[in-house]
């Protein structure tokens, strides 16, 4: 481990020194996202799906919609569940640390953004109050992990939800042949920042994530409200840093939201 720890210190120095000069390993500006490519609808077996490429990070979101019982304390709401599967595809087994913790945090942060916006009109997915509702499963598969799984997963999940088609039900609650989209109210978009030394970079790469001091994810919705935040990492943010990140998140959120909407319109989904 000593060697591993040493290497991590060398990597950190390298990235930190770049940042002091206002530079990043891959040539991006501090506020610059990597290229986002979204491929909705690629899993035909799922009611909705999207492969999101954020730089080399690849997350595949699949949406399955079943019927089931509502939770006892919310009889008038559909059920939504978000799961991020740690698949060994994207992470060799030998790596240390408790990965379960990471995938749980990832799923919960993505989920909170969607739930709190709220993105989905949950009451409209109730079939019979207190008895039968739609159950929406959001499953995130990390295919390649080159940093910023939070934002890649957010884009994949939100685009998949917006392009999901479910069967219209007849009066007895049985599926008809007609399809309808999920009732989407909002498109929450997350923005993740890495603090390295005194510098704050958006959309951290895998190498930047390995050496970051602190992380901040801010999710905003269509009207510019913040709907979820999550600080990560072992260091601290100042209040000014936080408010600055929030402002940038609102701006970036708008751009990404437009990208997603344009794509969906263009592809007629």
């Amino acid at each position, binding site marked *: *481990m*000593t060697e591993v*720890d*040493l290497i991590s*210190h060398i990597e950190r120095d390298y990235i930190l020194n770049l940042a002091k000069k206002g530079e990043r390993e891959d040539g991006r500006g501090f506020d610059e996202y990597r290229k986002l490519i979204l491929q909705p609808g690629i899993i035909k077996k799922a009611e909705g799906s999207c492969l999101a490429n954020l730089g080399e990070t690849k997350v595949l979101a699949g949406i399955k919609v079943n019927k089931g019982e509502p939770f006892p304390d919310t009889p008038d709401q559909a059920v939504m569940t978000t799961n991020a599967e740690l698949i060994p595809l994207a992470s060799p087994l030998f790596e*240390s*640390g408790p990965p*379960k*913790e990471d995938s*749980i*945090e990832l*799923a*919960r942060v993505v989920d*909170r953004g969607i*739930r*709190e*916006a709220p993105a989905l009109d949950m009451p409209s997915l109730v079939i019979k109050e207190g008895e039968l509702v739609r159950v929406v499963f959001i499953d995130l598969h990390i295919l390649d992990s080159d940093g910023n799984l939070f934002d890649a997963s957010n884009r994949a999940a939100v685009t998949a939800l917006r392009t999901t088609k479910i069967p219209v039900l007849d009066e007895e609650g049985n599926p008809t042949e007609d399809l309808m989209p999920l009732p989407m109210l909002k498109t929450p978009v997350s923005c993740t920042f890495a603090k390295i030394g005194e510098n704050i970079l958006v959309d951290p790469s895998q190498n930047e994530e390995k050496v970051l001091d*602190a992380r*901040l994810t801010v999710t905003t*919705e269509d009207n*510019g*409200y*913040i*709907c*979820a*935040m*999550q*600080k*990560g*990492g*072992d*260091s*601290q*943010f*100042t*209040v000014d840093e*936080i*408010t600055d990140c*929030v*402002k940038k998140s*609102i701006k970036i959120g708008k751009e990404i939201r437009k990208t997603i909407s344009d794509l969906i319109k263009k592809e007629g989904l």
Partner: protein
Amino acid sequence: MELIKDGIRIDGRKKDELRDIKIEVGVLKRADGSAYVEWGMNKVYVAVYGPRELFPRFLRRSDKAVLQCKYNMASFSVDDRKRPGPDRRSVEISKVTRGALEPVVLTENFPESVINVNIEVVQAEAGTRCAGITAASVALADAGIPMKDLVPSCAAGKVGSEIILDLCKEEDNFGESDLPIAMIPRTGGISLLQMDGLMTAEELEEALNLVKKGCKIIYEKQKEALRKRYKGDDHD
């Protein structure tokens, strides 16, 4: 439900008023350090063990101690019995708790070691993660772990159109948003920050200011609890 009326909240508090908080230090014998917090209806124990050798070996760090935090809720701590053992929520809270405490613990003094912070919520009613972090930094101090500062923690939130401090259960369940924060008083830095619900950027600033005020009060209570413990000043 009207959660706030004429500036008075459902439980009678003002917007910037904390619930009653009681902090005790050194309440457990076997732990190297411990603390107990009562915060409104919340009751939270924290035990700190370490620094000790870490097993299995491959988890060790040659440059610092590993800080392991575990947040757990007793099955009888909530209205509907909770199945014993960790769930996804408690795994996440354990993780962010570690992030809240790391900045103040001088882990670099104890390479190859582990420091365990075990948080046990025996009664829960909104704000247990903040109560846990508040108690944990006191328990770390009680264990003699060198630290840069204590870590007071509390939540702000939005209820109706008002920004309020330290949400009670009804405000947490029916309010607009919840913003648990941990602060490092000496630097003014924020080491825990989560948020759910809707809030504008301006409201966030207001909420952060309110939390700062709350944390200052909690910080004094933390220091007082430690002083009591170590000065033998044990009368209430």
